């Protein structure tokens, strides 16, 4: 499509002469874009916040021995069962974990791969016992995932020897404080005395029910030769799925699981939210498009006399159509621009508002995509809407106008 300069000039004059209509359309587009920028930023921020809270202080990908989850026993010696059976030595522990660690170190997307020992135990206090998860960690790797440094509410965040960290939930249930010593029993019935060095709050009740000690101490306490799992965090949490897929392809003796697989419900919730916000966006765009189309159609009728004159003087049909497409595009462009500014304003006002009111603060996520996508879509709808009057303009016969007088 080749544009002639007079088409721009005439489009501009038509826009200026129909000032109130032009302003109304631009305002409509601007509000539509602003609402979308705000909505998308809000949703995006909310989702990221939710995900951060859910998985921020937990592994994104977990490598575990296959038997750490219930599996068919495989008794009976069927060929298929035999084929599926992992090597005996890797059944309930990862023995060769150093090799895994080295291998995982070669992935750029991995922030940290921390060896872990997991087990169950009971804090014994008098006649009561409180079930806890026992976790053996290495520092500083585990700190990247669980951020004990940040999440320790009292005491010291570094476990060592028989000095351990316990979660706030366990601490509250058992009444133990920093410096207290207690008897911890493992599943096999044996146990030992430990002292509490620090108490942490990881934000979830399961995690706050942990007793955290050094890897070696846990290995010894739980009588494990290797490790229980390798917990991985990645730079882009949404890429965890892909990484899990890759690891699954290369590591066939262990079970690889991403946070997405463990949190299907959260993800489907987020997906539903995405769908509903996409629907809102679609209808906002639709109403913008219909609004522009109807106003421009009226403009085309109002300007049919001028179009007839222009055609009599040699404007062809395509050119007449382009005059309206230019109008639609220009209003879309200006509207989108104002909309972006308005949307950013609304977003920062909202953030300021929630912060100053002391409510739960979370950052609205303003990204280039969040801004450009609604703006581009609005621009596209405005241009599409202008096809309605453009068609009318193209089909207009100059004689209709000239003879009507």
């Amino acid at each position, binding site marked *: 499509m080749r544009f*002639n300069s007079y088409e721009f000039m005439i489009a501009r*004059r038509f826009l200026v002469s129909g000032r109130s209509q032009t302003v109304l359309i631009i305002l409509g587009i601007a509000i539509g874009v602003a609402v979308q920028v705000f909505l998308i930023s809000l949703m995006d921020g909310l989702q990221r916040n939710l995900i951060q809270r859910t998985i921020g202080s937990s592994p994104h990908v977990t490598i575990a021995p296959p038997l750490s989850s219930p599996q068919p026993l495989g008794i009976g010696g069927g060929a298929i069962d035999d084929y599926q059976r992992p090597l005996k030595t890797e059944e309930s522990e990862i023995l060769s974990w150093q090799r895994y660690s080295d291998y995982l170190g070669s992935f750029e997307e991995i922030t940290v791969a921390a060896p872990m020992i997991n087990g169950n135990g009971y804090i014994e206090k008098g006649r009561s016992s409180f079930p806890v998860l026992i976790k053996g960690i290495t520092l500083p790797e585990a700190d990247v995932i669980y951020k004990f440094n940040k999440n320790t509410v009292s005491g010291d965040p570094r476990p060592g020897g028989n000095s351990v960290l316990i979660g706030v939930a366990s601490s509250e249930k058992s009444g133990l404080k920093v410096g207290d010593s207690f008897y911890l029993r493992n599943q096999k019935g044996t146990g030992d005395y430990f002292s509490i060095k620090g108490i942490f709050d990881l934000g979830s009740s399961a995690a706050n029910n942990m007793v955290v000690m050094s890897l070696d101490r846990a290995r010894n306490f739980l009588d494990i030769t290797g490790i229980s799992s390798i917990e991985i965090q990645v730079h882009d949490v949404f890429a965890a799925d892909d990484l899990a897929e890759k690891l699954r392809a290369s590591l066939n003796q262990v079970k690889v699981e991403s946070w997405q697989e463990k949190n299907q419900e959260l993800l489907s919730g987020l997906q539903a939210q995405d769908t509903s916000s996409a629907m809102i966006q679609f209808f906002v765009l639709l109403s913008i498009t219909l609004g522009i189309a109807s106003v421009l159609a009226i403009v085309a009728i109002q300007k049919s006399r001028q179009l007839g004159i222009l055609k009599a*003087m*040699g404007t062809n049909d395509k050119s007449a159509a382009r005059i309206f497409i230019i109008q639609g595009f220009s209003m879309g462009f200006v509207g989108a621009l104002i909309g972006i500014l308005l949307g950013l304003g609304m977003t920062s006002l909202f953030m300021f508002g929630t912060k100053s009111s002391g409510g739960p603060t979370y950052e609205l996520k303003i990204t280039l995509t969040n801004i450009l996508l609604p703006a581009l879509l609005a621009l596209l709808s405005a241009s599409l809407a202008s096809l309605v009057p453009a068609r009318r303009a193209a089909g207009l016969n100059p004689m209709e106008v000239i003879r009507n*007088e």
Partner: protein
Amino acid sequence: MSDIIFLDRINKFYGSEVVFQVLFDINLSIKSGQFTAIIGPSGSGKSTLLNIIGLLETPTSGKVFLDGLDTSRLNKDELAACRNEKTGFIFQFHYLLPEFTALENILIPYWIGKGRPPGKVVDRALHLMKRIGIEQLGGKYPNQLSGGQQQRVAIARSLINNPKIIFADEPTGNLDSKTSNMVMELLKEIVSENNTTLVMVTHDRDIAAGADRTIEIVDGRINFDSAHTY
């Protein structure tokens, strides 16, 4: 002098359910540089004939040759370009664009055909305005002008592309007699200065009397042609 306009058996029908024939087998040739007046009663088909010669309407059958070009072979876009290049129109109503100043209105036909007018063309527009006595009105919008001034702007507009033919449909029909005479004189002068062919539909026998040739259309047929009475 050569024929700048040649009509070959033009017929024009209107309507689809009730078909109504407006023009019957019109054959006509008009020489370059002539002032031809087309007269006739209302509804005789004279305006339709003018619009067909001016490529604003297409004949139902027959051919229109303009400046040697068979216009029946042109598509819609080419017809539009041909209108822009070869013809100028002056209507009973000025049909200026209200969004543009007088000077801009005069320049629009050039802009449509060739893009933004260079200084040379603007100078030509100013010269034309001066020639027809509206040089001080260039910045005014059509609704700020009197009827005679508007029609003079329309005349300047029809001349900006140096067309070979100017079509005028009752150009003075909306003006008082004094203004009418003034506009008519001006039009004739300018047309003869530029050796432009002028084809004008008019009711006015006095105007027709001043033409080089008068053609009377009655009921869609040429009833009288002064060229054949010499």
